[in-house]
């Protein structure tokens, strides 16, 4: 089902179940967002994606990433750049910047929405350039991948994405998806040869049996084996060497 709504004056047929943020994007309106990742369910924690919703003469602010369109939304008017929205968005980013003044992502967003320099510094202010800003993307990715190895833990200055007690976790498979998706680069990963170190644990990358290049860890392969039935043979070679092999087979069996 689709319902007629208006976003910034543009009428659109919003699909039931879609989020306001996606619906806006569909008609070319970009709403700034931090904690939203299109592959994951929204959590609405950063509040950057705030919009103003007007319905039946009532107006309210709402986060657009987790506002799911339902029948009751028919006829609603959404504003992504009303005065109220702009001042709220600036407030949100200024508060975040008083906590993380040096994080580039926040600096850029502040410039984008015309926010001023943060006033008073937050008591737990983190001066690092790559710091955890609590968006929870790492933990949600880990959950989506079925590992549940990390979560946002602890309070105040100590709060970051981490494994339980910051110890090497037996649930972590070392895929490094958290590291590659962290919007501020706060998650460290080191790779030397076929060894990868992440979250205080060392992983072996399965070396390609012809060239030695590693793509995934032994633990990832084991997970795919038990959860999806992939046999060991799938992961014996890297993509380039597989192509060479398959080309060899094709040239053997086809007539020239």
């Amino acid at each position, binding site marked *: 089902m689709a319902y007629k709504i208006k976003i910034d004056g543009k009428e659109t047929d919003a699909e039931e179940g879609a989020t306001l943020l996606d619906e806006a994007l569909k008609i070319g309106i970009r709403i700034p967002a931090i904690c939203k990742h299109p592959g994951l369910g929204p959590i609405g924690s950063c509040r950057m994606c705030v919009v103003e919703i007007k319905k039946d003469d009532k107006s309210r602010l709402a986060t657009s990433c987790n506002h799911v369109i339902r029948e009751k939304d028919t006829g609603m008017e959404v504003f992504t750049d009303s005065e109220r929205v702009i001042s709220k968005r600036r407030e949100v980013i200024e508060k975040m910047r008083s906590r993380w003044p040096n994080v580039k992502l926040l600096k850029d967003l502040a410039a984008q929405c015309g926010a001023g320099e943060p006033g008073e510094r937050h008591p737990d202010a983190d001066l690092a350039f790559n710091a955890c800003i609590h968006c929870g993307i790492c933990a949600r990715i880990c959950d989506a991948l079925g590992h549940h190895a990390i979560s946002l833990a602890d309070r105040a200055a100590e709060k970051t994405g981490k494994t339980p007690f910051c110890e090497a976790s037996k649930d972590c498979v070392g895929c490094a998806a958290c590291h590659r998706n962290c919007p501020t680069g706060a998650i460290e990963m080191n790779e030397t040869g076929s060894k990868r170190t992440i979250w205080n644990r060392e992983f072996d990358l399965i070396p390609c049996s012809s060239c030695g290049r590693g793509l995934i860890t032994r633990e990832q392969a084991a997970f795919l084996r038990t959860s999806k039935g992939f046999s060991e043979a*799938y*992961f014996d070679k890297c993509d380039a*060497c597989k192509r060479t092999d398959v080309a060899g087979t094709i040239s053997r069996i086809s007539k020239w």
Partner: protein
Amino acid sequence: MVVEETAMKNRLNVTPSKCIGCRTCEIACAFSHSVGGTMGKSRVSVANRGGGAFVPMLCLQCGTPACAAACQVGALARNPETGAVEVIQAKCVKCMQCVAACPFGNMHAEPSASGVFKCDLCGGNPKCAMFCPTKTLEYSPVRIPARAAVR
């Protein structure tokens, strides 16, 4: 992923015996998928088997794709119009499992694992076939029922 009925009208046929190893397909693909034609972005690669035998390697758009089976976030889906298995870039979390899972090596990783890419049949107008001088790669109408073609 199960083979769904597709509205696919054309199929990319490959006849390796016709290939002369000119790599025009690689260049066409690179230009079609990157600004300025970065060769590393080509989804097709021609393997030289020696003695004048060349085999262009590209995604088979499998009926039951291993890449999609290895993806845990639903970032690989079939485009019902072209029949191509496509990467939904926004959803990808870069775990590299699809690259490791494709039995034919046709899922590619960006440098330092910053993403993945594969053949998307150029959305229904594959440039490799368009520029292949010997018709090794040919995008031609499916003559057998679509269901059997993607198997």
